[in-house]
């Protein structure tokens, strides 16, 4: 009997708190959304289960403890290893032709980073976050999970969990967040602008793109090189046509393995003692602000560009909203919105893919600039 009591006092039940229970509920919501709504399931399932693991008292399964998850955290996140490998996979899976066929859309991808800076400034000046924390929160507006994790792990490791959850949650909520903003900022006439097909791009140009971009971006902002360099390397092995095995591995097994580890350790940063505070709530609010301003930034800049474009080369401003990254979700949202509004007459999926993939480069560059000044 005494042994049984001793076993009970040494069990996790004896140390289980209300905070742990609340975190189980948070994990349950993420897993529910992933399974029933298909919201970013590849990330939300590992993150959700990581939260459960981190909230098992005495189990040493949190990222900040001493167990196996902490081992992965220390060797994969703290060392900045995992996010760039995800970028390698993204490079393999991304077709940059829509961007290369319409280079003007590079600028829409830049304008759609506006939310990063608005949210960062709001966090710093209005909510008293430190500059490093504010920059890490702002990068949620880039709508790029690995970039958010990459920056937060270096500038604000204490906020890594909330930032990652906000980034991936809002990315999955793009179909809900963006349409009202697009509707508010565009007229019916603007939505009806039917853009011609982009000019075809030669294979040589497609192969030169990752090489040239990797060199120029990494020379300009060296801190962005881990992300941009790996993104462009991945794209080169996709496009060169002679590395089929590398392409298959980097875009398949490798990125899947890293996604499992990344999701699990990010979820495991969310022990109740780190997650349940007002800062988490503020991160979630600011993340939504960042997303909204990034969407508006791309849209408004497209409208400004239209002032200078000849009549037959006007841009459908809705495609500016796709500049928030979240590839390819944001482009699909724009396509569906415009198609629904025009009874299927206008279908800007390919034009929207241009700013969409430019946004990936834009947010990585913004993260690199923050690292340059704040690390």
């Amino acid at each position: 009997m005494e042994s049984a009591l001793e076993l009970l006092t040494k069990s996790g039940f004896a140390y289980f708190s209300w905070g742990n229970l609340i975190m189980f509920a948070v994990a349950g919501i993420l897993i529910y959304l992933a399974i029933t709504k298909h919201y970013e399931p590849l990330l939300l399932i590992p993150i959700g289960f990581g939260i459960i693991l981190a909230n098992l008292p005495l189990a040493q399964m949190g990222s900040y403890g001493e167990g196996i998850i902490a081992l992965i955290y220390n060797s994969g996140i703290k060392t900045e290893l995992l996010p760039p490998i995800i970028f390698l996979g993204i490079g393999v899976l991304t077709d940059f032709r829509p961007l290369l066929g319409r280079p003007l859309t590079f600028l829409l991808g830049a304008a759609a980073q506006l939310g990063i800076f608005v949210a960062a400034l709001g966090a710093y000046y209005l909510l008293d976050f430190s500059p490093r924390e504010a920059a890490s929160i702002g990068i949620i507006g880039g709508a790029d999970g690995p970039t958010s994790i990459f920056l937060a792990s270096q500038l604000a490791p204490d906020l890594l969990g909330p930032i990652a959850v906000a980034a991936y949650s809002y990315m999955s909520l793009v179909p809900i967040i963006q349409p009202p903003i697009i509707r508010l900022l565009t007229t019916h006439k603007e939505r009806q602008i039917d853009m011609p097909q982009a000019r075809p791009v030669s294979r040589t140009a497609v192969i030169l793109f990752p090489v040239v971009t990797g060199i120029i971006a990494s020379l300009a902002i060296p801190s962005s090189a881990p992300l941009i360099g790996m993104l462009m390397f991945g794209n080169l092995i996709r496009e060169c046509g002679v590395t089929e095995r590398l392409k298959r591995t980097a875009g398949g097994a490798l990125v899947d393995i890293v996604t499992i580890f990344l999701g699990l350790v990010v979820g495991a940063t969310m022990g109740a003692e780190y997650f349940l505070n007002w800062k988490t709530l503020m991160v979630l609010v600011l993340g939504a602000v960042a997303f909204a301003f990034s969407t508006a930034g791309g849209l408004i800049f497209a409208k400004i560009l239209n002032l200078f474009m000849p009549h037959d080369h006007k841009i459908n401003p809705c495609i500016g909203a796709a500049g928030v990254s979240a590839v390819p979700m944001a482009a699909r949202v724009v396509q569906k919105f415009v198609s629904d509004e025009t009874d299927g007459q206008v279908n800007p999926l390919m034009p929207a893919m241009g700013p969409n993939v430019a946004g990936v480069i834009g947010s990585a560059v913004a993260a690199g600039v923050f690292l340059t000044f704040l690390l």
Partner: protein
Amino acid sequence: MHSPDLLSICLTAFIAVFTLLAVLAIVMRLIAAIFAHKEPTIDAAVLAAVTAAVSAVYPGTIITKVEEVK
């Protein structure tokens, strides 16, 4: 500790993103112009064979384009 001026950092970062992507746009436009996409030319023997085959079924038809879809 000296607190960095986040406003100027954000302004610099926004300008840097715009400038870098604008430079990439110009460079890629130049590369696309230099290495322009060429429409694949169809083999003369294939064109003759297709023309002969179609003319046999629809006499007088003029073949203007033969496209290979893989």
